[in-house]
């Protein structure tokens, strides 16, 4: 057995600058990841159709990588190797190309997180001026014991009119106050629509004329 196959314990320093992935060797017994052959890679028809639709919008098919990965992530829950293989097979690119994109961007998941909920609290300028840091702190405190609820701050989500706001599994709610955090978490756990009365989707249009139409 050479040093390559051996599992070695590595002395690490206390401050821990460990980066995930850096310690991983490849599995030399695997086949190299070339472009998956459509003949041997099964892709669900609706996923294929969606990716092809995205590809048709760009002059270079590789431009569709991000929407295609998002589509696969919606279907598989995360950008699993299988999901990336399927996208690669439809897009005729290597899985490696997609993996570099999937690990680069924040909103592509590289690990399975079954049954989890995302709460993105906007902390950009408009929300911040209206008290977003307190809202974010409240969310962090309330959700600190919840494994399934993942709270993080976010740069501008583009809904300054309901600042300070948050996106709960893609549903925009606001304006928020720190005490709303508990309600949001309770709603998520109960499976109810979150803060129904303050969802952006339900907010009446401000323009009188448009509302009348």
């Amino acid at each position, binding site marked *: 057995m050479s*040093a*390559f196959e051996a599992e*070695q314990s*590595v*002395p*690490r*320093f206390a*401050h821990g*600058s*460990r*980066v*995930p*992935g*850096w*310690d*991983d*060797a*490849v*599995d*030399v017994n*695997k*086949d*190299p*990841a*070339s472009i998956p*052959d*459509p*003949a*041997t890679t099964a892709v669900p028809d609706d996923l294929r159709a969606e990716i092809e639709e995205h590809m048709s919008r760009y002059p270079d098919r590789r431009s569709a990588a991000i929407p295609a990965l998002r589509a696969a992530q919606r279907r598989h829950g995360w950008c699993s*190797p299988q999901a*990336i293989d399927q996208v690669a097979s439809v897009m*005729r*690119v*290597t*899985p*490696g*190309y*997609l*993996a*570099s994109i999937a*690990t*680069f961007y924040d909103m592509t998941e590289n690990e399975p997180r079954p049954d989890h909920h995302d709460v993105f609290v906007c902390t950009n300028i408009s929300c911040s001026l209206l008290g977003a840091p307190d809202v974010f702190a409240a969310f962090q405190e309330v959700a600190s014991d919840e494994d399934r609820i993942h709270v993080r701050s976010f740069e501008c989500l583009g809904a300054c009119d309901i600042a300070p706001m948050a996106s709960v599994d893609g549903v925009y709610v606001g304006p928020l106050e720190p005490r709303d955090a508990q309600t949001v978490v309770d709603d998520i756990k109960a499976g109810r629509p979150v803060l129904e009365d303050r969802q952006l989707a339900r907010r009446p249009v401000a323009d009188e004329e448009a509302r009348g139409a």
Partner: protein
Amino acid sequence: MPRPEVRMVTLTIDGREVEAPENSMLVDGAKHGDVEIPVFCYEPKLGPPVGACRMCLVEVEGIPKLQTACSTPVKDGMVVHTQTERVRKAQEAVVEFLLINHPLDCPVCDKGGECPLQDISYGWGGGTSRFIEPKRHFRKPLALSPLVAIDRERCILCYRCVRYSQEIAEDYQLVLLERGAHSYVGTFDSTPYVAPFAGNIIELCPVGALTSRAYRFRARPWDIEAAGSICTLCPAQCNISFTVRDDRVLRVMARDNPDVDDGWLCDKGRFAYQAVHADERVVEPMVREGGTLRPVSWERALDEAAAALSRARGRVGALAGDGATNEEGYLLGRLLREALDCNDLDSRVARGPSRETARALSAPALGATVPDVEFAHAVLVLDCEPMDDMPILDLRIRKGVRRHGMRLVVATSRPSSLDPNAAVSVRFAPGAGEAFLAALDAALAGGDVDSAAGAAGADPAAVRELARLLREAGDDVVVVWGERLTGGPRGEQAARALLNVCARLNLRRDGAGLLEIPSSANGRGLREAGVLPGAGPGWSEAADGRDAAGIARALAGGELGALYLLRTDPVRTHPDRTVWSAALARANAVIAHASVLTEGLLEHATVVFPAESYAEKEGTVTHPDGRVQRLRPAIGRPGGVRAEWQVLADVARRAGLEIALPTGAAATKLLFEAVPFYAGLSLVDLAADGVRWPERDAASALDAPAWEPVELERPPAAPSPNGALRLGTFRPIWAAPEVEVSPALRFLSARARVELSPGDARRLGLASGARVHVSHDGTGVAAEVVVRSDVPAGSAFLHEAQGANALSSGEPRLVEVRPA
């Protein structure tokens, strides 16, 4: 696109006037004034610069901030300073940053002593670091593939390897994962980076992050010597440099020659040097005694060989192949023709076109160079797979498409790895190259495309589109074609069709022409040295003889009594394996030069002379584009191995022909005198980069008149599948005895596989990985199924490995595929 014209501009660097080519980058321009600017990520071979490492910062007057010299093109009148305090501080800071997380393990690092980071730290670094925190530590070494080890502590994220994978090899397997400070070089889902050209990243890495697992810890730069020579493992004949320590080859590195290899190597060329020192290698002469080959003295082996040949005088056949040099080919020709009164010798695997047509095909005016492929307006890849047949040409074609806007058209029977880069790809039935050319000829001449395209099993519309593209792309068109196109009984007609196409596209001009990929490494050289039936040295007229297939039949039929095999084993490499097996079994004597005992020799050879490896050889070889290149011995010959020119001369002397050969150079001299268009060449001229003979005045000795298009015969239609499958065979890059005996490469050695289209696989009830029996008329081989969606329905492609040549013959065939 044609080569751009180079205009010189004048600029001032560090107070001195420098002339540099316009639009070259400052780093390169500065070299014209003997100014060195340090770089890590810049590598002109990798395409446009990325400016990632910031090592090359310089001050340019008129620009307030420091500029990266690697991505700033030179301009007329530019004033550049590379030695100011600002520049020095910036460069010191960059080095200090790079060394923050770079471990100080130079004593155990393989790159130590030949490491650009060491050199630059000494030359441009501050010498001290303010970083007192502990460095990052990771597991190491890690495997990146069975051939390459990665050490991520040492990586400085210069992107060279990733750019190589994406822009040169275009395999897109090696990528940068994660982002920012977390970025690291890796692959998808822990798959290994295994690709035909993956080894080049070892040479590209400016630190010790990517190292060769085969060379790991073998030697230090001061322990070794570099010996330049030529790799003769395939027709690409890349220029290489052997790393030698204690008379052993430890490594092979590229010796950049832009006219041949552009500084890249394939993994076979890079790692198959291990075959030189393999245990399996034959290092003593052997003679068959009581059914087995036993080592004997040279005297005895030479006497036995000469006696057997003399007994069969007039009834001896000979084949040459692989890495046989021009000199050996020439001496073999004289041995056969002059000493043994035989004319049955061949260096091709199947009968080719007639001497006249072959001369027309290799006319100097019609020859294209390797750089022509890159700068042409359009390239037609015809019935060959450069990746397998001449790997380094594959990179050149990709470079042409990517960097110079060359239009690529592919016409092959098997789906090509170049298809994604091609403007048009046309498929035709295996073995129907002639019919395809007839269709193309008709399309170019405005004739009846449909019938010929039908005979080829190709789509007439696609053929028309291909013809239109070749006509409209521009004047410079290069046709890259494989020897198999003109091999077989209808080779003559195929060659005439090809010449017609050349005439219609007017390829007799600079920057355009034909580039043939021969089936053996020095195929062109052996033909020019006269190892052909009916053609002597320099395509001179000679008495007609049998070709390879004819020799097999004559041996099997008892008309020939002995066979001389110069570095080839027909049972392994030639079509009709069963015929060859029978022929060798029937032959009274089989005398072989071999370095490995392959199956045909193991069973049938009566005398085996140990062959030199390419690291021990001296002599010349001829590149497919006509470049005569020189082999130089890098190490001594092991055991009892003798120079092969000497062995041939000794055999000839014992058979009654005295050839005065005091040295290897004398053999080269004889060759240059015998081949009219090599006249005047000398080994000194060939010393560094070789000489392309078609560019010399002596080339007029082979000049053929411009070809006038002729009326073509109606090509026979490709057999229609009717439930069976058309058989196509191809030789993967890894199907070579050198790969099998190299410990590092053994995991890649070709397995018997058959590629099927999804439709045929479904019809036969087969899935990828299934074991099947592929057969024709009772002969069959076992193989593993690979289902590929690109394979056209009705065809099956068999990897030529492990006896697959039992099924192939010169003619198109139908085969049955059944589960084993």
